């Protein structure tokens, strides 16, 4: 490849609304933050930023699996809230209960994912409805169980992953959250390069074609939901560790996660986008929140600015995707059987 086409290749990656674009966006946001407050790029501040961003990146990874498979998971915010509240109530400040409760949380996460996945795939309830229902079920159940507001306390050991780290020079503290994050990032990339990753994308792109070629669509999608719930569980461990238990924990995170994934160039409806893009989306979103703080933008205006940026980013990506591509397989999961029959 000659240098010129290479440059063109890089440029096209940056401007086509895919993975490259989000990292370009991230770079722009970081540059602006740097001009507003140069101290942000000092190592301790960057560590604090990454520690902060870690839960959202985990949620974005989980949400990516579900979205890439052609579904949507709205239950993760409620699940994070439920997991933190469950942990606080069951641990109740006792160090010795930390590990058993962590295992229980993991089991609960898997269970929620299984229910989401099986109801969506076997009972054929749209995932939007399934997970919306799950969101409400979890929210209500936790309120009922705790009598309206969280009780109990997290142990110090439980709080370590989200709050602590290894003290060292230069960065002041290497957060555990960052190490955990790196671990999951590597796992996610490996998983997406494995045969599972390929069937996941194939399922999201065209589930009929995938099933004709031997993919068990229901298994793939259920696995995606379980992965999402498990990632939400780890996010809950980090968030609970970071700031302890409050009644509002987890609220609205499902939308932050979906935004992150969409910003990362992953297309709702499935089949397109990379997990690296989703992670970049999470980092860009978190950086955007940081920028708002650094600019001292009025809190009340922030949702509007956030909304405009997201619509702009998605519209930009959609514009690119709207261009005709050669040899495109038309049918979509949501279409009625009749339409599908005709197009096929």
């Amino acid at each position: 490849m000659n240098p010129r086409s290479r440059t063109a290749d890089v440029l096209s990656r940056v401007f086509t609304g895919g993975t490259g674009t989000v990292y370009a966006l991230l770079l722009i946001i970081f540059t602006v933050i740097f001009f507003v407050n140069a101290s942000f790029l000092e190592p301790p501040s960057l560590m604090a930023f990454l520690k902060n961003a870690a839960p959202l990146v985990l949620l974005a990874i989980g949400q990516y699996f579900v979205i890439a498979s052609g579904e949507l998971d709205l239950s993760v915010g409620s699940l994070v809230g439920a997991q933190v509240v469950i942990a606080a109530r069951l641990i109740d400040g006792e160090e010795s209960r930390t590990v058993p409760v962590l295992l229980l949380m993991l089991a609960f996460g898997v269970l929620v994912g299984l229910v989401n996945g099986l109801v969506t795939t076997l009972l054929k309830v749209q995932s939007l409805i399934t997970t919306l229902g799950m969101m409400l079920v979890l929210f209500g159940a936790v309120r009922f169980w705790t009598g309206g507001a969280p009780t109990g306390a997290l142990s110090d050991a439980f709080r370590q992953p989200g709050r602590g780290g290894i003290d060292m020079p230069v960065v002041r503290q290497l957060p555990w959250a960052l190490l955990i994050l790196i671990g999951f990032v590597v796992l996610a990339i490996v998983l997406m390069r494995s045969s599972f990753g390929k069937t996941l994308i194939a399922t999201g792109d065209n589930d009929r074609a995938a099933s004709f070629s031997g993919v068990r669509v229901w298994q793939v999608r259920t696995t995606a939901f379980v992965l999402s719930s498990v990632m939400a569980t780890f996010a809950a461990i980090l968030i609970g560790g970071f700031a302890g238990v409050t009644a509002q924990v987890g609220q609205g995170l499902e939308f932050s996660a979906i935004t992150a994934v969409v910003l990362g160039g992953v297309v709702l409806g499935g089949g397109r986008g990379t997990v690296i893009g989703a992670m970049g989306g999470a980092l860009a979103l978190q950086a955007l929140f940081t920028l708002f703080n650094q600019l001292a933008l009025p809190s009340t205006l922030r949702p509007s600015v956030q909304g405009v940026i997201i619509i702009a980013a998605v519209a930009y990506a959609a514009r690119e995707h709207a261009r005709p591509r050669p040899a495109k397989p038309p049918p979509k999961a949501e279409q009625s059987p009749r339409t599908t029959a005709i197009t096929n």
Partner: protein
Amino acid sequence: MRSTPRMMLAALAAAGLVLAGCTTDEPEDATAPDDAEDVDESDDTEDEEPADDEEAPSDEWFVQADYERELAQRDIEPEGSADQPWLQALEPAMVDTGEFALDTEGNTLCFSNASISNPWRVTGWITMQQQVEVYQASGEIGEFRVSDAADDDNQQISDIQAFVDDGDCDAIIISPSTTSTLTPAVQAACESGVPVIVFDRGVETDCMVTFIHPIGGYAFGADAAEFLVDNLEPGSTVLALRILPGVDVLEHRWAAAQQIFGDSELEILGDEFTGGDGAEIKTIVTQYLQRGAVDGIWMDAGAGAVAAVEAYEDTGNDYPVMTGEDELSFLRKWQETGMTAIAPVYSNFQWRTPIEAAVRIWNGEEVPSEWVLPQNPITEADRDEFLEGNADMPDLHYAKFGGEDLPGFPDVWQDR
């Protein structure tokens, strides 16, 4: 063809996002913040548009007369025994209740609750139930009927209507979810002829027999702000952390603080909305600390105060001059770290008072028409005393819950 539904989905998601941004800020959580409200005549401020609250001067929420009255009330010696602050009253104007006197025992008491959606309300609700138990044992109260509106105005209006329609209630206690919306429902309850008792947040009518509340939000905000002014050098920096805009409950606290900060030489770095979320609080404080020194923190409610303190610890900064609330997690952190702090109080023991009021009314005894309860902040001087008294209580418990002499103490508050 294919990209069209995708674009729509994407746009939908984006729209959802904006909504999400809003929903997390919806007044629904307004009640979640904790506490309650001071209300009273100041409620006419409610009619004004709360839409552009951030930039709007907080005068919209500021009524000079109420502010001055509340600040003055802090220095008034309440009438009644100091051992029973829930029976004390500031400058009570007693009203005759002879028309409601009942000879019967085992009367039916009805309670329309706004919600139990935050730890402050949960704590108070437990205390109230234990107080009812006392009077059930002694025979005054028979049935205690309760409806919980889960922060939904419409639900609460129909809850109150149901009490009126049943006709079984010998008295109706109402803890309103919002001020102006609930006013007609409270009026309807009054017109049914049974005694009505309103507590915590107010309504825009005086038809009820008694309106029970602590001094109020201006006093709360002023306690915290004055402490910062007194304990920080001129020119020091203060960050204000607030839960939500546009809720009178919380706006009064901030309005009072702005008055006091305005007359001081403190530099207010900003006022940030946190939604009461610990993670958000910690993130915001961390980022302010990255920009420069923050010498003091003012909060409109103590939930999450510990997260703010942790931000200083985790970034290796010295503790700020801190204001919180009488929530135990904060009091414990304060004792543990020895920082300079104050815990303003929105008296949780007020949940006992409506029950006492109902029994008095049935006995034909006088009650104050506006029953203003004392509201004293916890300072370093009496902090340890409150921590000792609540040693076995959970973190999200409120120190001034005032239920130490009730049956079930301490177990029912511990196993919530």
